């Protein structure tokens, strides 16, 4: 049982590694750890008001215990907002990733003309900021200003109402598909290009058609990329903010707390309640982390494991 303990090694202090690490540590602490820590601190604070709340000394900050968290978690708007973004994500993610995979496979096929041009053309919308894209699409969604509705009107038809009711989900998902497909396509395409050509050769000798190669070889081999893009899309869905915020002034159909992050913004900068907003932020961050790691644990080992 008893094994001889290794002789204690003399430790000499070497400052050099710390010197090299210092900039990263300082930046991490100042721009990442400190703000998060401060938000965590704020989430346990609240304002106490005395009298009419006017003038000096009417407001004082004090400890709130867990009350900001209980009100954040019992607020039905946060849950409703989460459900709304899940419906939105349920439409968006399969369509966007499906298109991205399709385009990547098409670009990867042997007989493709204008490959570089097509790749840039599909990728280009990603380079347009979300706010600009939303404004652009907003114009197209408004029947009074949209050329699409104008043409439909000339044909005696009326277009769908995209800025009210359930049409809103289509309108928002469409903006995201338009903007996000290119990015995901590039990720998948890059991983397609790294598959060794011998594998295809072997498949062809075995008599596989191009379709069979795509379904049986290419897709399984890019599975890690698909998992990665799905993971990114999932997080982006939970944090959708700029598209609905930009479309909001154009319609009655989007409330100020439409998505969870919009609620945080609303609490902090419209209601002026930075404390509740901090608590909600912490809740959202925790849920996002839990879902992310849960998802990676669920599919990660399978998808990545197959490669080894």
């Amino acid at each position, binding site marked *: 049982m008893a094994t001889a303990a290794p002789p204690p090694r003399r430790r000499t202090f070497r400052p050099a590694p710390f010197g090299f690490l210092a900039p990263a540590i300082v930046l991490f602490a100042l721009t990442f750890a400190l703000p998060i820590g401060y938000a965590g601190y704020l989430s346990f604070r609240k304002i106490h008001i005395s009298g009419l709340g006017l003038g000096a000394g009417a407001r004082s900050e004090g400890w709130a215990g867990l009350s900001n968290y209980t009100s954040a978690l019992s607020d039905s708007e946060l849950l409703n907002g989460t459900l709304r973004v899940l419906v939105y994500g349920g439409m968006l993610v399969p369509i966007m990733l499906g298109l991205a995979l399709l385009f990547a496979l098409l670009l990867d096929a042997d007989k493709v003309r204008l490959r570089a041009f097509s790749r840039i053309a599909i990728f280009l919308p990603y380079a347009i900021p979300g706010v600009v894209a939303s404004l652009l699409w907003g114009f197209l969604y*408004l029947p*009074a200003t949209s050329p699409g509705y104008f043409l439909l009107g000339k044909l005696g038809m009326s277009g769908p109402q995209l800025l009210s009711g359930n049409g809103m989900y289509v309108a928002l998902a469409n903006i995201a598909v338009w903007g996000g497909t290119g990015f995901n396509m590039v990720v998948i395409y890059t991983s397609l290009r790294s598959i060794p050509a011998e594998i295809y050769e072997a498949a062809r000798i075995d008599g596989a058609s191009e379709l069979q190669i795509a379904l049986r070889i290419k897709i399984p081999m890019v599975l890690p990329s698909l998992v990665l893009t799905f993971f990114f899309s999932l997080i982006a869905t939970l944090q*959708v903010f700029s598209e609905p915020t930009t479309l909001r002034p154009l319609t009655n159909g989007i409330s100020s707390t439409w998505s969870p992050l919009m609620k945080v913004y609303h609490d902090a900068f419209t209601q002026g309640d930075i404390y509740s907003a901090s608590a909600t932020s912490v809740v959202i961050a925790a849920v996002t982390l839990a879902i992310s790691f849960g998802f990676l644990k669920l599919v990660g080992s399978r998808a990545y494991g197959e490669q080894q």
Partner: protein
Amino acid sequence: MLSMHRRIAIGLTAAGVATSLLAGCSSSGSTSSAGASAQATASGPVKLTYWSWAPNMDQVVALWNKSHPNIQVTVEKQASGDDLLTKVITAAKAGGAPDLVQAEYQALPTLVSNNVLADISKQDGSASSKFAAGIWKQVTLGSNAVYAIPQDSGPLMFFYRKDLFAKYGLTVPTTWDQFAADAAKLQKEDSTKKLTTFSSNDAGLFAGLAQQAGASWWTSSGDTWKVAINDAATQKVAGFWGNLVKNGSIDNQPMYTPAWNKALNDGTQLAWVSAVWAPGVLSGSAPATKGKWAMAALPQWTAGANVTGSWGGSSTAVTNNSKHQDAAAQFALWLNTDPTAVAALVKDASDYPAASDAQSGGALATAPDFFSNQPDFYTTAAKIAATTAPAAWGPNVNVAYSAFKDAFGKAAQNKSDFGAALNTMDQTTLADMQKQGFKVAG
């Protein structure tokens, strides 16, 4: 979705975003030197900073700087009133608020409640005679203190397309009943046209209309607030517009959208209930209709009455952070009452001045270019401005306004009961005050 990797970075720091924004706000602010007080000492002139969103305010301030070498004011341009409110509260907490700040009337209780504004009654208390009583009450919050000097005001009026009213045989409404009759008649004449729209994206207009009907949304007695957003007067206003939306005689889409601009520009919408600053908006939104509009007094609830509400309007306030409150108060008074300053405000900053004397003559002698067909525009406006009903604001107007947008947006969309939306707005506002810890009665 467009900025996916950026989002993820943001997302992981979701909790941090808000606070880093806050930190960013507090850096700029009063650059006042440690010089003793208003009088310039050997250490040089007193330096003041002024946050304002009015266009060309720097040109107006340049006049002051020229004539007052001992008190130099620097304008720091801000985006808008809404943005400024949160920013200045945050800056004040960090001790970095500017000396002077432009503040909308409805934001004053919120600012006072956060202890941002200094009481300048000692310096400027005697200025009350220069303003209409209803306006002055908004800067005192009904107390003996003076928290700001009124700068501009926005009395509500009725703007309509004169040519199209003649074409469809509509009478210029003097009562809201006539207004509703006009809307219905227009529907019969041409179902593609609408008299106007009910917009849920600016609560200020609704607040002004309620004010005209006699609403007092916030009142206080002793140390208890009373919230009465769903009082009888406001219910009447909400019910009236709700019916018009429900029976389809007016549109239900928000204003300030590309679609709204187009509807005004091509005559799909014939009228706009708006404030004295409307010509500026119309010339941008509907440039093709120049000279085709006319302005009249707001329709009344009882025939023969003569009262209006206001939409917008702002004041100049001195902050508690300022080390030179006397000098700042002196500037605030000059900016809003000195004839040269007010003339420059009208001409360069497109303000409709709050000071009574400034509302006639001078820079307002000629009608705005867009209304050149109505030469007595500002004479009429001054008469209407004098009939402005007093407004009653509380410490969480921002919450009430935001609740209005959400509740009435939904009701306008579904053409459902506006009374229910009004109750939601009232309850949300009340609940927020209770949550914040105010003593409040429903």
